[in-house]
C-alpha cells in the first residue's frame, strides 16, 4: 500500500500542489484546510498516516496547535510531522520543534525535496 500522507494547509493552491506532488510520488494524499479540520481527518484515518505535513499560519487552529494536539493523541505520538512554512526563522523552527515537529520544509517547496523529506522521515 502506498504511503498515506495527511497534508494540512489553508491555502487551496498549496493544497493542490501538495496533492499533485504526493500523487505523482505515488503517495496517497489526505487533505485538510486547517488544524481543526486536520484533527478531524486524522481521527477518521485508520491506520494512522505514515506522515503529516502541516502549514503554520492557519485559521481556527494553527500548525503549532495542531502538532501539539496530534502529539497528545496516543496513536499519533510517533507519526512524523513535517512543517511546511515560509518562515525560516530559527525561532519559529524551534517553536515547531517544541510542539513536536519532526522536520520542516521551507515554502515554496521543491517537489523533489518534499518527497525526499517524506522518504527520510518514513524510512
Amino acid at each position, binding site marked *: 500500500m502506498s504511503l498515506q500522507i495527511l497534508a494540512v494547509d489553508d491555502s487551496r*493552491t498549496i493544497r493542490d500542489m501538495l496533492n*499533485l506532488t504526493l500523487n505523482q510520488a505515488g503517495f496517497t494524499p489526505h487533505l485538510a484546510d486547517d488544524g*481543526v479540520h486536520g484533527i478531524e481527518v486524522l481521527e477518521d484515518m485508520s491506520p494512522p498516516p505514515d506522515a503529516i505535513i502541516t502549514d503554520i*499560519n492557519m485559521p*481556527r487552529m494553527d500548525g503549532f496547535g495542531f502538532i501539539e494536539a496530534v502529539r497528545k493523541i496516543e496513536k499519533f*505520538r*510517533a*507519526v512524523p510531522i513535517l512543517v511546511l512554512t515560509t518562515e525560516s526563522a530559527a525561532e519559529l523552527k524551534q517553536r515547531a520543534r517544541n510542539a513536536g515537529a519532526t522536520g520542516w520544509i521551507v515554502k515554496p517547496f521543491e517537489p523533489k525535496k518534499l518527497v525526499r523529506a517524506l522518504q527520510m*522521515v518514513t*524510512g
Partner: protein
Amino acid sequence: MMDEDDPMAEIRASFFVECEELLEALQDGLQIMDDGEADDETINIVFRAVHSIKGGAGAFGLEDLVRFAHQFESVLDGVRSGTIEADRNAISVFFQSGDILGDLVRAARDDDVADDSRIQGVMSSLTAMLGADAQEEETEEEVSDFQPMGLSLDLGLDIGDNDAPALPDLPDLDTTPPPATTAVFEDGYTIHFLPDSSLYASGNEPLHLLRLLREMGDLDVTCDTSALPSLSALDEEKSYLSWTIHLTTDEDEDAVRDVFDFVADLCTLTITGPGKPGPGLPPTDAPSSPSTTNEGATADVSFNPPQDSDISPEASVALKPDDVADVKTAPAPVTSSAPAKKPAPSASKSTKPRPTVRVDLERIDRLVNLVGELVINQAMISQSVMETGLQTNSKVSEGLDEFMQLTRDIQDSVMMIRAQPVKSLFQRMSRIVREASSMVGKSVRLKTEGDATEVDKTVIERLADPLTHMIRNAVDHGIETPQDRIAAGKPEEGIVTLSAGHRSGRVIVEISDDGAGINRDRVLQIAIEKGLVPENAQLSDSEIDNLLFMPGFSTASEVSDLSGRGVGMDVVKSAILALGGRVTIQSNPGKGTVFTISLPLTLAVLDGMVIDVSDQTLVVPLSTITETLTLMGPDIRALGPQTNVIKVRDSFVPLLDLGFELGFRSPLESYVGSIALLIAQEDGNHAALVVDSIQDQRQVVIKGLQDTFGRVPGVAAATILGDGKIALILDPVDVVANADGRTRSLKSDLRLAG
C-alpha cells in the same frame, strides 16, 4: 484524477482565483480595522491573506508579488505583535498595499506589468513603517534562510537528558570515553551522532538518517551500545545509543549536514571532513548514563540497529516532571516543556470557507438553457392536459401540479448557481473611491451595505462599468470640497454609500452621497445652453434631475481627470437598461443624491406581460411598463393624422398603436375603449402603446434572437409560451424611439420577423 494536460497550469489558474478570494478577505479585514472594530483575529485574517498570497506566489516564482507581499506581511506581522500601530494613516497605506497586491496578482495572471512607480511609493511607506529595528530583524531572517539551523556543538549542554537522574538504581557510573574512531580515514567524512531522547519524541528515527547517508555513498557504521543499561534498568524513552559513521561520498559537507538538518538540535553531532581524522567525541559527551553491559560495547551494525525497536519513536512524548526540572540548565530543546505552556489556539470564529466546486460557466449556461426548455415543456403539457378537460383533482392534474412545483424549484436553484454576492463588485468600488477622492483632494469614505446580496454573474459583470462611473461622479460632483463641507456644517469626510438588497423579486442597488445634491439651476442652465430643452421650459425638479441622463449632457464645468472621460450618465443609463434594469435619481439639496438601480434577478427569465395585438401574442417586459390604462374618449386628443396624444393626469403623452408600429395593421379609426400600456422612456418621458388585450403576467424564458437574426429593432428577444407558440419579447422603449423617427423600412423587417 489529475488533469493530464498540465496540472501545474491548472493549479496556477486556481491560485489566481484563490488570490481574488484572499484579496477580498483582506479588504474585508482592512475595512473592519478602518471601522475601528478589529480584534486580534481580524488582524490575523488580514495577515494570513497576505501570507497565503505570498506562499502561492513563491511556488510559481512570481518574484515581484513575493517581494511586495513579504514587505506587507512584515508590517502586518508588526501590527499583530503590537510593534506597529495600525492608525488611520497605517490603514490607509494598507488599503493601498491591498490595491497594489491586487494589481500585482492580476499583472502576474495576465503576464502584464504592474505600475512600478506606484508600487515603489507604497513599498517605501511600508518600509518606513517597519523602521530601523525591524530592518535589522529582516536581515537576520534572511541570513537564517541560508543557515537553517545552528548546529549545537556545545556538547555539555546537550546531554541534559542523558545524565538525568532517572536511573537511580544503577550500580556504577562508567565514564569511559566512547569508542571513538578506531581508524583514521584518508577520505570521506567521519560523523559522530549521539541522539537526544527528544529526537525520538519528535518522530525522527536514526535508521532513516543512516539510510539517507547510505544513498550518498559507501558507509561504515559503528553503533556504540556502551551506554545501554540492563533490560530491567532500561528507560524506554531514553536515548542510549550513539553512532560513528564513516561516509565516502562525492557530496560536499553541506549535503552531509543536510541529512541531519531536522535533528541538528536534537543530537550531538560532529562531522569531520575528508582527510582529517575524526576527533572522536569529547569526554563530556560520554554517555554518563550508567552501563552494566559494557563489554563488547562496540558492535558493527549494518543499517538495522537491533535496538531500533526498543527505542522506537513510539517511546516518548512527555518526559517525567523531574526531567523537565533538570532541563533548566540545558537550553537544548525538550519536547515536553512546550505543550504545557502554550494553550491550544481557540477554535472559535470559524472562518473556514464552505466547500466549493468550480464549474465552467458554459456548462452552467447549458443547464440554465435546458431547464428553460423544461419549464416551457412543462407548461405545454399542463396546457394540453387542461384542454382534455380532466378534472383538477384527477391524479394526472395533481401529478402535474407537483411536476410544475418541482420544475420551478429546479429553475430557481439553477439560477442560484449563476448568482454571486455583489461583494467583490463593491470592493472594487472602494478602491475607486480611494483613488478618485485622492485625485480631487477630497476626503471620502465608502460604506457598503448588503454586499451578501446575490445577483446573476453576468449582471454583476456588466454592472461594474456603470457603477464605477456613478461612484466617480458621486466623489467628483456629489461630495463637496472639504472647505465647503465645513462651511455647511458637515463633517469634513464625505460618505458615499453603496447598498444592495432584494425588493419584490428585483435587485436594488443604491448609490448615495451626503453631498450638496444636484444644483438644479445649473443643470437646467446647461441643458438650455446645449439645446437639450427649450429656453423657457418649465420643468419639475425630478425632470431637471433626469436631464443628467440625457445624451450629450455633462455637468462638469471643468472637465476633471475623473468623470470627464467622455462617458456621460446617458451611457450609464443605457447600460443598465440593457440589463433589463432601471435607474432613478433622487436629490435633496444640501443633503445629497441617491441613484437607485433596479435590476432583474437573472437575465435568463423575465417578468413579462403577455398581450395580444392584431392576433399576435407578444411579451412586454414588466419593468418597462409604468401603468396600464383603458382609454376614455375625452382623454384622447388628435394632434394630426395618425398622431394622437392622451391625457394622463396632468400631462399629455403620445399615443402609439403597437399594431401599426409593428406593421401588423393600419391605424384604427378610434382608440376609445382600447387598452394602453404606459411606457417609461429613457429621458423620463412617457408614451402609451395601444394593445388589443392583456392575457397574463408571467415569467418567460428568454431566447436570444441575436445569433440568428441579428438585432431586430423593437424586439428584444423571443420566448416560447405554454401553448408552444413563439412570442416575441418587445423592447417597447425602442419601439417608441423608432416611432419618433418613423422609419418605414424597419417595419417591413419586423413583418418578416414576426
